[in-house]
Structure formats: structure tokens, C-alpha cells
């Protein structure tokens, strides 16, 4: 039954928040603490046990409520619960608007995310996955950002509908919704539904993580909501869930037969990388900068996955350290906001000089995301696929990293130059940021989650070869770029806002459809009414009251009858 705790306990506590939260404000944190700690405890307890599963027939022949906790699932659930717990410590000490709805969404998210991670049935997974839309919406709306909430909901709903289609197609191709069965006979991309299923599943996973074109709500939310939410959902949970699903996808499909799968990953990744790199330089707000990093990192992750086609465990480790670094950065941004009263880069210059612990956390997180920690960019074997001769890929990713590094230099420089006054902030805020920074550092150094031994340091990266030289060149080029051209403007180029474009297009389409509806109304209602009115008007005019006209009518009728009868028309 331990397996049920991470799903049910937070949900029960969320109900508690909903019922008592308004009348007893303290109960919000109390219930959330119980839910988060209980879920974390259960996640740790799962590690102490072998393979766990739970089965209940929720809906006959349609949906079994089946959860499994193998190594992969345990890792993801542990990561989710750990992130939730640490961010809760931060949230408890920071200013949160509408606490009741924030903590309700917090617990709801934790429950459904754990459910999605442990579901052994694609439909059940989709149920939990799509359910996260509700908490995402409530989180943002309760922070007072209504238009952003609308945007986030619609963008994610579209991504989830793509995933629904992917799930249906995958199940049709595999002949089952049971994940454990699908894994035993992965779908070929050459199957009738295979390629579409793979593409839609990947799109659903990446949409959840905010990949382009599903990204534009993230910078808006960063600007209008609190750091705890940003660290929790877009930076951590959605990232972890995305890599989790990508990991699942790697087991659902057989990608070894050709390059189609890798190409799909790379094609989905490139727009995110390009858009994010350009936008990183245009940011004048620290939270906006981190928000675009979320988009960038999912792009890089998908690109690297396409290049290396790594396994599920590798993907999850990769995703967790990115999530940790991004969360740490958001929490640092929240600390800076609390201390300096702003996150606008021109108003917080020099703030990090006075906040040394926050500065260390922030720099570690930046370094991890730039892959310079322990010279990871040089020694990383996630580029193994690229090393094997994909020169264009190497040049693209190297160029991207030059600009990424330069953008980070620019922001770090802005945070250290100047003399902004800061006020003290609660220690707990720094504690949470610090934990994530350390976690990110450990992961980037090669710490990999292992089901049997949580604390094994499995450094698998030292794989020096000629491409490592490219890594050094990237760092040097980025330094040179920062010195010579600290703020590249890319001219007037601004990547298209896909949401706005889609909105404009959908408004045009809906106008067209509305006119189509009116056209049918004209055909069905207006036209017949007009014709009948005119006909009856004419008919009424023919009623002259003169006998001769009626005799004429009768004769015409008789003539028609006679012609029809004689020609055999009645038969």
C-alpha cells in the first residue's frame, strides 16, 4: 500500500485545504506539510522495497487503476516528492497570495504528478497528466494573472490533446494500453500508426515542459506569479515529467531501425533552442531570463536525446539536474526580489555582492545549466551521437552554447555590478536554493539515481576525445563574445510569438466558421422564409375573386393531369 501514499495522501490533504483553508489559514501549511512529508516518506520507503504494484479495476475493460514502482518510477516519484518538500520549505517563508488555492494546487499537483509517474496504463497516465491542467490554471489564476492563466491552460490543453491522440495511436499500434505490455513489444516507427504516435507523444511531453511553440506562457507567468510556483511547476515538475515521458517513449518505440526517431527529437528541439537563445539576450528581467532558460533547457535536452538516443534512466538523471538548477535559479530570483524589491536587471545590480550565499547558489546553477561544471561540456558523453560524425549538429550546438554562455555572463555581470541596497531575508529561503544548487552540482558531476543505493556516485563522463577541444573553444569564444559584444541585439529580429499567431489564426478561422454557420442559417431559415413569403404573396395576388381566373386555374390543372396520365407519368 506504500505505493498509494504519494498519490492519495496529498489528494486527501488537498481536500483538507479546500475545506478548512479559508476559515483556518494555518491549516493550509499544516495540511501541505503533512501531504508533502508523507509523500516523501513513502517515496523513500519505496526504495527500501523491491518492485511494488497496485491494481484495482476502476472501470471494466477500460481503465484499470494500476500503479507500478520499478526503478524508473521510484526515481521519478522520489525526485518529485523531494522537490515538493524543499519548495514547500521555501514557500512557507515567502509571500504567497491566495494561500488556500496555492497550497491546494501544490498538493493536487504532487498527487497527480506521482500518479502519472507510477501509472501502468496509458489512459491512467493521461488522466493524471491532463489533470495537472487544473492545478496549473488555479496556481496562476490565484496569483492574479488571469490572462496568463488562460494562455497557459489553452497552450497546455492543446499539448495534452496531442498527447491524447498519441496515446490512442500508440495503444492501437501496440494492441494494449498496459505500459508493461507495450514495453515488451515496442512499436516500430514503420508501423501504420507508429511514426504519428511517436511524434504526438513527443509533442505532448515537450509541450508540458514548455518547448516551442508551447512556450509563451512561461515568461508571462514568470513575470506575474511568485517564484515558488515557477520553481515548483514549470522549472521542476513539468521538466521532470517531460523527461519521464520521454523516457517512457524510448521504451514504447523501437528507434533502432533508422534515424527517424532521432530526427523527430532534433526537429522538435531546434526551434526551442533558437528562440530561447535569441530571447535570453533580450531579457531585462531576471525571472524572464530564467523563464527562457526553461525553454532552452528542454530544447537542449531533446536535442541531446535525439543525438544520443540515450536510455530512460539517463534521461531522468539529465532532467532532474536541469530541474534542480532551474528551480534553484528561480528561488534565488525570489530571494533577490524579496531583498531588493525587484527582479529588473537594471534595479538589482550588485545585489549578489551582498548576498553571498545566494550568489554562490545562483552561479552554481548557471554553471550547471551552461554545462561548465567540472568541465561537463567537454567531457559529457551525452554528445556521443554527435561525435560519430554529425558535423552540422556539432557546429549548431557549439554555436548555441557560445551564445548561451555569453548570455549568462551578461546576467551574472549585471547582478554583480552596481550597489543596490538589500534587506535581510529568512534563512530558509536560502536553504532551499542551496539544496537545489548542491543537487544540481552532484548530478552534473555524474551522480545518478540508483534504486539500490541512493548515494552512489557513478561518474560516467570522462571520455576525452577530439570534440572535447570544441568544448574549450566554446568557452573561450563565449568569453570573447561577452567582452567584445556584451549585448548582441540580433537586430530587430524577434522570434514569432506562436501563441499570438495561433490566436490570430484561430480568430480568423472561427470568424470564417461563424460565417459558415450564418450561411447555413440563411439557407435553412432566411431563404425558405423569403421564398415562401413571396410565393404566398404571389398566390394571394392570384386570388382575384373573378370566376374566370379560377376556371383558368382548374383548366390548367386538368391539362397537367391529362398530360401526365396519357404519358404514363403516374406509373
Amino acid at each position, binding site marked *: 500500500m506504500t505505493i498509494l501514499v504519494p498519490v492519495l495522501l496529498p489528494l486527501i490533504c488537498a481536500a483538507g485545504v479546500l475545506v478548512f483553508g479559508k476559515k483556518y489559514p494555518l491549516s493550509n501549511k499544516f495540511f501541505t506539510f503533512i501531504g508533502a512529508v508523507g509523500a516523501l516518506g513513502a517515496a523513500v520507503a519505496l526504495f527500501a522495497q523491491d518492485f511494488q504494484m497496485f491494481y484495482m479495476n476502476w472501470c471494466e475493460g477500460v481503465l484499470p487503476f494500476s500503479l507500478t514502482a520499478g526503478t524508473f518510477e521510484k526515481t521519478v516519484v522520489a525526485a518529485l516528492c523531494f522537490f515538493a518538500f524543499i519548495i514547500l520549505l521555501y514557500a512557507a517563508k515567502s509571500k504567497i497570495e491566495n494561500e488556500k488555492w496555492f497550497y491546494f494546487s501544490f498538493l493536487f499537483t504532487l498527487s497527480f504528478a506521482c500518479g502519472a509517474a507510477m501509472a501502468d496504463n496509458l489512459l491512467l497516465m493521461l488522466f493524471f497528466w491532463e489533470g495537472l491542467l487544473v492545478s496549473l490554471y488555479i496556481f496562476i489564476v490565484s496569483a492574479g494573472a488571469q490572462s496568463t492563466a488562460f494562455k497557459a491552460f489553452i497552450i497546455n490543453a492543446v499539448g495534452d490533446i496531442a498527447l491524447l491522440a498519441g496515446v490512442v495511436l500508440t495503444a492501437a499500434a501496440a494492441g494494449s494500453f498496459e505500459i508493461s505490455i507495450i514495453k515488451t513489444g515496442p512499436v516500430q516507427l514503420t508501423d501504420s500508426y507508429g511514426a504519428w504516435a511517436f511524434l504526438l507523444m513527443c509533442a505532448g511531453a515537450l509541450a508540458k515542459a514548455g518547448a516551442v511553440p508551447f512556450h509563451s506562457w512561461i515568461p508571462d507567468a514568470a513575470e506575474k506569479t511568485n517564484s515558488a510556483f515557477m520553481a515548483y511547476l514549470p522549472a521542476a515538475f513539468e521538466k521532470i515529467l517531460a523527461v519521464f515521458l520521454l523516457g517512457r517513449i524510448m521504451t514504447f518505440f523501437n528507434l533502432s531501425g533508422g534515424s527517424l526517431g532521432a530526427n523527430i527529437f532534433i526537429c522538435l528541439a531546434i526551434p526551442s533552442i533558437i528562440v530561447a537563445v535569441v530571447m535570453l539576450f533580450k531579457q531585462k528581467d531576471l525571472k524572464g531570463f530564467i523563464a527562457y532558460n526553461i525553454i532552452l533547457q528542454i530544447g537542449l535536452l531533446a536535442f541531446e536525446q535525439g543525438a544520443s538516443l540515450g536510455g530512460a534512466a539517463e534521461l531522468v538523471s539529465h532532467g532532474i539536474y536541469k530541474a534542480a538548477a532551474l528551480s534553484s535559479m528561480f528561488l534565488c530570483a525570489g530571494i533577490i526580489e524579496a531583498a531588493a524589491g525587484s527582479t529588473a536587471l537594471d534595479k538589482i545590480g550588485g545585489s549578489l555582492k551582498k548576498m553571498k550565499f545566494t550568489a554562490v547558489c545562483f552561479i552554481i546553477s548557471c554553471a550547471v545549466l551552461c554545462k561548465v561544471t567540472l568541465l561537463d561540456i567537454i567531457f559529457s558523453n551525452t554528445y556521443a551521437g554527435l561525435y560519430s560524425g554529425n558535423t552540422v549538429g556539432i557546429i549548431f550546438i557549439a554555436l548555441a552554447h557560445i551564445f548561451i554562455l555569453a548570455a549568462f555572463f551578461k546576467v551574472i555581470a549585471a547582478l554583480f555590478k552596481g550597489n543596490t541596497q538589500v534587506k535581510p531575508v529568512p534563512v530558509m529561503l536560502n536553504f532551499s536554493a542551496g539544496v537545489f544548487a548542491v543537487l544540481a552540482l552532484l548530478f552534473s558531476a555524474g551522480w545518478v539515481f540508483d534504486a539500490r543505493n541512493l548515494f552512489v556516485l557513478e561518474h560516467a563522463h570522462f571520455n576525452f576525445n577530439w570534440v572535447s577541444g570544441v568544448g574549450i573553444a566554446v568557452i573561450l569564444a563565449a568569453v570573447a563574445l561577452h567582452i567584445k559584444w556584451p549585448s548582441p541585439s540580433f537586430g530587430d529580429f524577434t522570434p514569432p510569438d506562436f501563441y499570438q499567431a495561433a490566436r490570430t489564426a484561430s480568430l480568423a478561422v472561427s470568424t470564417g466558421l*461563424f460565417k459558415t454557420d450564418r450561411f447555413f442559417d440563411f439557407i435553412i*431559415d432566411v431563404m425558405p422564409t423569403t421564398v415562401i413569403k413571396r410565393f404566398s404573396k404571389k398566390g394571394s395576388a392570384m386570388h382575384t375573386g373573378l370566376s374566370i381566373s379560377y376556371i383558368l386555374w382548374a383548366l390548367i390543372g386538368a391539362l397537367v393531369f391529362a398530360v401526365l396520365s396519357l404519358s404514363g407519368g403516374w406509373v
Partner: protein
Amino acid sequence: MLLTIILGPILGAFAVPLLSKLGFKPAHIAVALGAVVFLLSVYLLTAAGNGTAFVWRFEMPLGFGPHFELDMLSGFMACCVSFLSLIIIFYSTGYIHDADYETEYYTFVILFLGSMLGLVFSFNLIWTFVFWEVTAVCSWKLVGFFRKDADKKKAVKTFLITVFGALFMLMGIIAVYFSNGTVDLSLLKGAHVPAIACLLFIIGMFSKSAILPFSTWLPDAGVAPSPVTALLHAAVLVKIGVYVFARVFYTIHCDPALMQGVAFVAGLSSLVAGGAAIRETNIKRIIAYSTISQLGFIFLALSTGSAAGLIAGMLFIMIHGIAKGGLFLCAGIIEHKTHTKDITMMGGLWKVMPWTGTAFALCALSVAGIPPLSGFFSKFMVFKSALIPGYGFIFFMFLVAACFTAVYLLRTFHLVFLGAPQHEWAAGDGSFQTVFSVTLLGVMALAAAFLISFPVGYLVRAAAQMGVL
């Protein structure tokens, strides 16, 4: 028993004006009749599940005698219809306060309920047609309830379009009679019916269930009182077409190409209605367009002719009825509060009517198919059933329609309940009956997700009973 559940409300409808003359309140009589009918339908549902047979026939020349029969499908539909009708009648007691026409209102609502149940249990197509037309008369009277010129015009439009479609269906029935020698569905099991007869049937069903090109009467019928729109145009009346579609086309054998055509037109209808809902600003018209759009999903599922399609379609009827009924009833409360139907003139209502807001949110999420609401399951099952060869483009059309659904419902919620208030609204949701009704439907939209195994399990057995599983 079958005669009781059909004739009870039909005769009861005529008793309403008589008893009101004796001092009984029409609302009380209607609630009592609705409750009795609901209890009877629950009994019949259980009996059908246990395999108990209820058949009533009356021999007439040419095989035109009425033939009512209880099977699991009709039991399921009757239960859905009577439950939603009961809720809506109860809501009406807190909404309809027009002393002059109150008696007439309840008379026609109860008559509608009786004719609907007659249609549900009828196995003779002639009698299906008779009850079909009685519902049209009821809807004509109820849509024009407020008696303004514009209302009357819309009522006439509703009547004419549905009757026009019904005439096609009558021609279809005649064609079946001449080609197969009977109009009794129990004798038509597995029979090959000419494609032209099927087409005529489909036109009739499209007109009743508001599918393009016959859909435009439904948004116009929003001039009716909200409980009427909920009863006729969301929960019950428009479901006649899809129910009879299921009943007829899961009995006779029809050309699969025609069914693919049905799915395509339904997809087009869903898209057009979804697009129109995005542009619309009248809350009741938005919900009506939404109904048209969602009816397309039901036709999609049923057009597949498979057991999965039957289960998905019937489940969709139930879940959509609950949620859409809730939305229309919420719209009634909102209209009472704001005295407008224009959503751009509302805003900020969440703070003053939280119960209605919560119910609206739950129902809207259910219609949009978002978990943990029950609409998720029906939406998913429709898509799952539609994954058959030749349906690729249609499948895509419905995916887009599903996106539209999320957009217009969320937009409506935002403009009505969030944002800056356009006026200073007084606090308070509405009368007890109205708020209780919408809250119940909202809770049911949520609870049905966790109890989904009951309707699905029942429908699986219904599909087996109909010989498609």
C-alpha cells in the same frame, strides 16, 4: 410497468391544469411526477440489468401497433432522461415564477417527459415518429414561453426545422416498410435497409440533434427560459436524434460509407459550431453551440458501428447531459443576477456567486474533457472508438474541435466569473432550488469520474445484449 412510466407523465401532464384548479401548485405536482418517473426508471434500469423482460404490444393493422420494450439501452436512456428532467423541474420551482403561464409550463414539461420516455421504449418506428413529433410540439410551446414576437419566431423556427427533418424520417420509415415489410425494430434485426431509407433517417436525426445544416435552430432556441434550454436543448431533446440513431443503426444493417459520411458531417458540424462559439458573446448561444459541437462527438462514436462506439456514444450522452444541463442552469442563474446574456457585460461574478462559479467550472471542465472530471472518459472513449481505417481526417477534425471546446468554455468562464466586474453585483447566488440543482450537477460531473465503472459496465452488457460485442 412500461405503460405506467409512459402514460403516467402523459396523463399527468393533463392532470396538472386540472389539479391546479383544485388548489394544488403545478410545481409541486410536476416535481412529484418527475420523482415518480425517476424512481420507476431506476427500477426499470435495475430490472433490465437483471435480465427481466418487459414488453407491451398492441396489435394494429399493417403492423403499426405500438410495441414498447425494455432492454438495457432503453433502460439506461430512460434513467438519464428522467434524472435530468427531475433536476431541471426542481430547478424550475425556484426559477419560473410567472403565475399566468406556470401551469402551462409544467404541463408541457411533463408531457415532454412522457413523450420522451415513449420514444425511448418504442420499438415500432411509427410510434417512435409519433412521440418524436409530440416532443416537437412541446418544444415549440416551451421555446416561445415568454411570448415576445422574437421568441415566437424562434419557436416556430425550432418547430419547422425539426418537423421538416421529421418528415424525411417519416419517408424513411415508409421506405423501410415497403422494402422490408415491417417497421418493428425487433423484426428488423440485421436487416439490410436501402441506403436511401438510411439517408432519410439520418436527415431526420440530424435535424433533431442539430447537426449541420440543420443546427441553427438550437442557438436561436436560447430565447427560452433556462430550464427549458437545459431540458430541451442540452440534456434531453437533442439526445433524441442520437439515441434513435443508436437504436436504429445498431439494429439494421447500413452501408459503412454512409456512416463515414455521417462522421464527416458531424465533424464539420462540430468544427463550425466550435468556431461560432468562440465568436459568440451571448452565454446561452455559446452553450448551445457547444451542444451542437458535442453532439458531433456522439455521432462520431455511433457512426463506427462498433461496441466501443456504442458504449462511448451512450456514455457521452449521459455525461454531457449532466454537464451541459448544469451549464445551462448556471446560465439561468447568471442571467437572473445580471439581467443580461452578454458575457462581455459581466465579469467578477466569482466573488459574488461562488457556488454557481464552482458548478460552472466543474461542468465546463467536464464538457472540455479535462480530468478528473467525468467528461475525460467519454471524450477519450470517443476518440478511441474512432480510430478505424478511413477515419484519419475525421479524427483530426475532432481533435481540433476538442481544442475549440477548451477555448470557448474557458473564455466564457473568464469573462463571466473573472476579470473586472462591469457592474457592482450584489452578493448571493440565487434561490435554494437553483443553486442546489447546479451544485448537484457539478458534483455529479466530478463524482461520475470515480464511479465511471457503473455506467460503463452497464453499457458493456447493453452492447452485448444488442449483439455488437
